[in-house]
């Protein structure tokens, strides 16, 4: 009997082992969305209630819309640059706080308030003081500082969070904020995409931890360099991040086609913005280990690496550079770039152009016909290539003047998409 029972127990054990121990589920612990990205507790930088914001937007002529209060937080998150190196980046998360009147209005319509996220990528900056978290840090308790007409960071917060009720997230970018001291990877596709995607995931973690009523809607927008960064991020998300669903993508006035941008610049006698062009050359030289002296004449080749570490303003950099293409670029390099499709920088520009995919997400390229910094041919040809709409905001606006109406138009479009 005992012998037979032992056999039975053995048989049981064998069968049981078939069922035990495989598990195999991805994660059975805590919520891992953004878990490995958010590196430190968020730091509150400003906090204004809806009454204060209502008065504030009245001062800029908005009297027919209810204002949200806002709370701004600096977060630090993990990202990687083009070389795959770990970077501790930072960004600003502005959380709208609905007034009781807004909530009541929604309730009457049978709706509840939930939060959509807009990741807004800023345009080209040079001094670290212009990074979103540093701009926000200077606001403190001074609401009047939000009326600054010179900061895209603030204009964006007013449009998207105070009026629009979106959670606005604004990455500082690599090289600014917490990663100051690293050369900003200017118009490099991977770094640009990474810093946005990692910030989105960190913001989701931040929102989940803070019990924010996130609704999962993610929008992307950004102006100038931010337009490029936006499209780089959208392209990468559509390709490799199925768990992030983009509701709408609205890049504005960005150099999406770097080859076309470069050809335009080098075929002209002068540069309108040598600080921009110097930044690009320095960024590509450093990232791809190209000797700057093979592209740029002295003394600029020696000076360039020192200009883009967050310590100089654009005006200071421009003062140190020349507007003359022939003075700035090595002649042989210029000729080779313009005539040789295999020119190394030209090849890299093609590789880093972000208009080489067909978006599945609703995507529109906003621009101004009168922009001479980012000529309209760039957004128009990119939109045609990508099979999407290019939206002309105005025929007369220059690059800087175009930003404000473009943000307004984008906010309106996102607001429509949010309600679909």
């Amino acid at each position, binding site marked *: 009997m005992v012998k037979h029972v032992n056999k039975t127990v053995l*048989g049981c054990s064998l069968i049981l082992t078939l069922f035990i121990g495989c598990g195999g589920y991805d*994660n059975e612990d805590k919520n891992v969305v953004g878990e490995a990205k958010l590196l430190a507790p968020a730091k509150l930088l400003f906090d204004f209630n809806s009454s204060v914001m209502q008065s504030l937007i009245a001062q800029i002529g908005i009297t027919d819309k209810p204002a949200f209060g806002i709370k701004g937080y600096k977060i630090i998150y993990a990202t990687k640059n083009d070389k795959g190196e770990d970077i501790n980046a930072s960004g600003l998360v502005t959380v709208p706080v609905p007034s009781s009147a807004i909530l009541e209005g929604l309730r009457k319509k049978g709706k509840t308030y939930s939060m959509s996220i807009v990741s807004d990528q800023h345009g080209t900056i040079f001094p670290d003081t212009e990074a979103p978290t540093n701009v926000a840090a200077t606001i403190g308790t001074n609401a009047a500082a939000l009326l600054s007409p010179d900061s895209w960071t603030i204009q964006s917060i007013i449009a998207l969070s105070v009026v629009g009720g979106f959670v606005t997230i604004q990455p500082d970018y690599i090289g600014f904020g917490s990663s100051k001291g690293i050369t900003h990877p200017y118009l490099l596709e991977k770094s640009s995409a990474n810093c946005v995607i990692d910030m989105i995931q960190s913001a989701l973690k931040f929102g989940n931890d803070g019990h924010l009523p996130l609704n999962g809607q993610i929008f992307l927008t950004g102006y100038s360099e931010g337009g490029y960064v936006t499209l780089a991020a959208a392209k990468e998300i559509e390709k490799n991040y199925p768990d992030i*669903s983009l509701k709408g993508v609205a890049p504005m006035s960005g150099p999406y086609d770097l080859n076309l941008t470069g050809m335009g610049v080098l075929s002209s006698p002068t540069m309108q913005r040598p600080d921009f062009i110097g930044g690009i050359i320095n960024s590509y030289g450093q990232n791809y280990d190209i000797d700057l002296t093979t592209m740029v004449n002295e003394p600029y080749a020696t000076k360039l690496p020192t200009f883009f570490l967050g310590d100089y303003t654009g005006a200071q950099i421009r003062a140190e550079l020349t507007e003359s293409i022939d003075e700035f670029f090595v002649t042989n390099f210029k000729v080779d770039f313009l005539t040789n499709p295999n020119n190394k920088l030209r090849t890299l520009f093609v590789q880093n152009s972000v208009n080489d995919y067909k978006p599945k997400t609703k995507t529109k390229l906003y621009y101004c016909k009168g922009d001479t910094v980012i000529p309209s041919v760039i957004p128009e040809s990119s939109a045609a290539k990508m099979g999407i709409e290019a939206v002309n905001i105005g025929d007369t606006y220059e690059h800087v003047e175009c930003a404000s109406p473009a943000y307004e138009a984008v906010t309106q479009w996102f607001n429509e998409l949010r309600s679909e």
Partner: protein
Amino acid sequence: MKNFLIKTTLLSICASSALFSSAYRLPEQSPRSTALSGAYLANAGGADTSYFNPANMAFNDNKNISSAALTYVSLAKIKYTDDQNPAFNSESKKEDLFIPHLFFSSKEYDGFRYGISLTVPGGLSKRWDSPYAKASAQEFTLKIIEINPVVSYQVNDKFAIGGGARVIYSEGIVKSDATAIGIPAKRDMQADTIEYGYNLALTYKPIRNLNIAASYRSNIDLKEEGNAKLYLSGTKLYDGGANVTVPLPAVAAVALSYDLGSTVLEFEYDKTMWSEYKALDFEFNDNVPLALKAAFDDPKPREWKDTNAFRVGITHRYNDKLTLLGGFAVDENPADSRYLGFELPDSDAKIYSGGFEYKYSDQLSFAAAVLYDDKESRAISQGRSAADPLAIEGEFKDASALLVTVGASYSY
């Protein structure tokens, strides 16, 4: 790897298990039990008595007996017709699956016998593709496999007792997707568990032709633990641990069988303690995004009630080789109409069955059985309103199940 493959194969066989009798309980596990509509307790005999009534192993011939069976289950599509919104009309997927059963009963050792069984005592699978139904139950699958080692002891010629340990492996899948009805929330959860319980049985033979038997299988709470992913607007907001507990309820049964000579009649009453199932409560190991809390984190009341089943079976020895079997049962459903959902739109059923055994030799016999489970239509009115726009207001119909079981038994 080999074990993993075997496990995977077994689970695949049991995948999508069954839903056709008393919610997700599956009483029929062998050709005889299927042919007798589950009226198989007092007159249980052979290898499969190790599962249905281990006390009766004591009255088996003094041989080792093994049997194996395979049940094909065909679950018809369930149709849901909404009373208010034709866009909510839904139809579940048809399910075809195979369920294996293994049984062993030993010869006697000083009054003791032992046995073991591998069965699928419950399970459910409901899959819906229609937008409204998919919003709450794109897939609800519960797989349950039981290994049940048992011992019996013959007290005297008239009385025997038996009992054993229940080892349950269970795996659950829950998916829902409300995107198509304008609520962009999705859920994808997979979990499993191993749980334990016991079973007891006794048989008393007051006179030569009469068997009286009772059995009890303990309640086992299946705490399915695994991973859940929650999405809003297509963006993953939660990816972490989660668990949900559902009962494999206790079942108490009494039966009597009477041998008329060549014919045995059995009457069985069983009570399934579904009242253990109070709520469907998913628990998450971390904070659930606020906007998903009400949909996925808050407990959903179920408030099931205990159910009664009445079964009758007839076994007729046609000749030395052939035995014919037939059965009928009335089986209640436990689901409260107020809380009934698409994951299990259960209703009362009538069960009809039949089968035969053929004795090929003294050692080897074959058996086959067919069972048809006819579910009643069920109209539900849960009070759809602005506050609860997805409440069920309509009728479930056309639910049914067809089982075909074949098996072989070998004694030595």
